[in-house]
Every structure is written in C-alpha cells, then in structure tokens.
C-alpha cells in the first residue's frame, strides 16, 4: 500500500501540476471513468507548428488518476497531435512507476484517454488493459 501511495504520487495528488482551466487553449476534451465517475477536463495549447505548448487539466479524481494526469501534463510539450495519439499506456504507467492492479489501471489511464480524445477531437478508446474481473487477476488471489 505504501508503494501505491508513495510520496511523489501523494505530492502530485495534493498539488497537481498544470491544474485549472487556462484562458486560452486550442484543444479540449472532458470525459469520465464510467466505473467510478471520476471526471477530467484537459486543455491543450498548441504552438505555431501545431505542437503541444501547454497541457492543463481540471476535474475530480482519486490519487492515482489525479497524479497520473498531473505527471502526464509535464511530459507532453513539443509532441504533435499524432504523437499524442500514439502514446502507449506504458508511458503513463512508467511515469507512475508502481505496480497497479487491473481495476486501478483505468484510474491511471483516464488522463491519457482524455489527452488523446482532445488530440482526436472525439472520444478515444481506452488503452487495452485488463478489465476489472479479469480471470488473470482472480488467479492472483
């Protein structure tokens, strides 16, 4: 447990980076995790070349989803929209740097989904991940 709630995650949860709605942005998307109701709204400002200049977000979420998105916003500068859409789930999971259960993976990936949706201008798919109740998960018990 202390691994999951280690200091840098709690730090990002309590003081999320790039949090709040900016005055100017070029792309935005809002979505929810349908399993728990967590909401995130992502805003992206692009530079003249159409690359990410600034990502910010707001919303209500747990420590994992908030920290994951907070960390993600710090890593996207300079990426094109296509590069955003190609980000794998590992990009976020590596930022978190912790083992995470299948049920909490959805929390961790909410921000990535919303970032991709903003880049796409439409609802992006969840990254493929173990679904809650995955038999592989059950076998660990």
């Amino acid at each position, binding site marked *: *447990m202390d691994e999951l*709630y280690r200091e840098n995650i709690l730090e990002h949860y309590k003081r999320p980076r790039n949090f709040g709605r900016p005055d100017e942005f070029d792309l935005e998307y809002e979505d929810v995790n349908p399993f*728990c*109701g*967590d909401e995130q709204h992502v805003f992206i400002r692009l530079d003249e070349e159409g690359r990410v200049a600034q990502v910010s977000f707001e919303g209500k*979420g747990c*420590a994992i989803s908030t920290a994951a998105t907070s960390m993600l916003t710090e890593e996207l500068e300079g990426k094109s929209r296509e590069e955003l859409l190609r980000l794998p789930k590992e990009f976020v999971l590596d930022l978190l740097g912790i083992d995470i259960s299948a049920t909490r993976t959805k929390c961790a990936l909410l921000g990535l989904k919303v970032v991709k949706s903003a880049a796409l201008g439409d609802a992006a798919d969840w990254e493929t991940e173990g679904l809650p109740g995955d038999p592989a998960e059950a076998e660990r018990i």
Partner: protein
Amino acid sequence: MEPAATQSAAPSSAAYPIDKVRASFPALERQVNGNPLAYLDSGASSQRVLASIQAVDRYERRHHSNVHRGAHTMSAEATAAYEGARATVADHIGASDRRELIFVRNATEAINLVARSWGAANIGAGDRIVLTEMEHHSNIVPWQLLAEAVGAEIDWAPITDEGLLDTDGLARLLERGPKLVCVAHVSNVLGTLNPLSEISGMAHQAGALVLADGAQAAPKLPVDVGELGVDFYALTGHKAYGPTGIGALWARLDLLREMPPFLGGGSMIRRVSRDGTTFADAPARFEAGTPAIAQAIGLAAAFRWLDGLGMEAALAHEREIADYALERVGEVPGLRVFGPPGGPERTGPVSFELEGVHAHDVAEILDRHGVAVRAGHHCAQPLMDRLGVAATTRASFGVYTTREEIDRLVDGLLDVRRVFGL
C-alpha cells in the same frame, strides 16, 4: 493505530445469535491481505449463506432437468423445486398469490420488465413519471428509455438536505397527474427507509401506480407488499444472501393479467402458429426461455434461512449496527456522513466522504486492512449531483456484521488519514 476495544465492549442485543449467524457464512472465515475479512459491502452483494449454497448443490447434483417440460421424474422434481421456490419468495414478501411472483435475473430486469410491458402499454406522449432524487440507476434508466421512446416526461421528487424524501415536494408533483411513482424502499446510498404506505396512499389518491425498488430492503426488513400498498415490487437474490442471476418482480395479479409479454420465446406461450401466438397467463407469460432454476432454488433457500432468523431480528440487528457505525465514523476527523441520523427513518448503509481523500483511495487502504467497502457513485449519479460529490465511500451491513468490524473500519479510516498525512 489504537484499536478501540473499549468501544466494542457493549454486548450486541442479547437475543441475537451473532455467532450462529456468522457460522452460516463460509466466506466470513477467510483472510484478506493478512487480516480477517470485515465484509462491509453487503449492499453491493451479500455473502452467500451455506443453506443456499447447499440447496443449489443438491439440486445440481441430483435433480437438475428442465422445468414445465417432460413427464419424467427429474423434470417433475425440478418443476416442483422451482415452483416451490416461487411460493417461498412470494410468502417472504407477503404476496397473497404465488402467480404474482415472476422470476427475473435481478431487480434491474424486474424494473425493465415493468417499463417495457406495463409502461409501453400505459404511458404515452405527455404522460408523467415521478422518480426520486435518491434512486439507483436501475430505477432511472429504464424510465428514461421509456420516456424517450414514447415522449413521456420525468419529474424528480426532491429529498431534504438530511436525505429524507420531501413528501410535500412529492405531493406537488402528484398534482400534475403522473401515471407512476418509482421509489426505492431503502436508499442504497443514504440508508433512508422511505414511507412506502404513505407514498402509495398519496400516489393512488392522485391516480398513479407505485413501483418500489426493494433491492436493498428485501434482505433487511419484513416486507409485506399488501401492507405497503405498492403495485410493483422488485428485488434481487444476490443482496439477500442468495445467488447472482436471480431476482423477482411482484405485481398485482389484475395488472399482470392486462400486461403484454416482455420477452418472447419458449414457456411464455399458449399456442404458436404460423399466423401468430397466444400467450400463457402470468407468471409464465413473463418468463420466456428456460429460467435460472438452480438460482431460484438458491434464493428461496436464502429466504427460508432469513425467515428462520426472523426479519424483525434482522432489522433490529441492522439498525443497531447502522446506529453504532454512524456514531463511530462520526468520530473520525474530517469525515462527513450522508443520509439521515440514526433512528427509525434509516437503516444502513453508511456513506461518507473523508476530506482530502478520494473514496477510491479510502477503499483501497481499507482493503489492506481486510475491510471491504464500496467506493464510487453507487449507481446513483443524480443523487451524487444532489449531494455535490463525485463519489462516496459506503459501508453496508448484513445479518453477520459485528461492532468489532465497525471498530476496524474506524481504525482503518484513521490509517487512511495517516497515509495521506492528514
């Protein structure tokens, strides 16, 4: 972390056989994350009572066959067991006639059955349906689908800030002449026990029928559909110590006689020809296809076991635990409880918010202590909106819940505060 042992010293109600009850639930013996399980999530799904597990096992091993089919012995045994289960469930909720009891998959399917059958035949463009702000999605979405399909309107009966149904607000909505009032018997978030007989009286006087969602209530209250005065009552097995995949709809026989079929197929017909089909009478008309036979038998066994314990005793225990939990969690700094204070207007569950910590994180840390609670919107997002929260943590109780488990919940909550540096 200091266990609050002194707080638990007060004995449970002397007559309540808590040790015997707990011995009837095999899952309670297990350990979770190195701690004895404290299962405080019975409102989502209760643990399975041994009598029900054994009834399903006996049926599966020796008596399984299709029902209402063959002339052979095993089919006759299966049919007798299935119809016997119908009678048991009907008796448990005070139905005067077992034909009023329809087996379905769960409370959700029961409500969808009413919406698709009675609703489609009786609710049209411009008609109104009243829901309350504390409904579960199962008693919201089927009505939204119907309203959209036929052009009907939905009105939301308000709740007070305390979490009780605002009956004056309901009365004002009844003046608009709705066709139906849909209300939870017990709220799955607030624990509010709604005054169904009063609501039924008001609704009937205004010419509306009443559908009660008994998913939470059926396992913890004595239910008598006649006394409650409702027209439809939905319940589910897996919150009543029975299996998943089985629930029941009770409806007044005169309504069922007029209601068109829900699903079409085998078992629900009288005669099928190339030109058309005539339908069986209730309950068969609403039970198309081979039903969940073993699960119906398992549900009946669970209700028989509950009846042996006594629903008055179950309710008294539920209230004692809910009142104790309200008192104890109230001691945790930064914790806000939703729903009415302890007393006759509520049972469990106890839902709360811990300032500075999301409900998911609360539940995750409690799980490490072996304490199972639910975190999230509890399939009641309009209620979450009304309360101004995205999610809550919910501790819900069963006949097997002890004060010691509530103490462990509180100790776990203090640890959540420690982990989050609060």
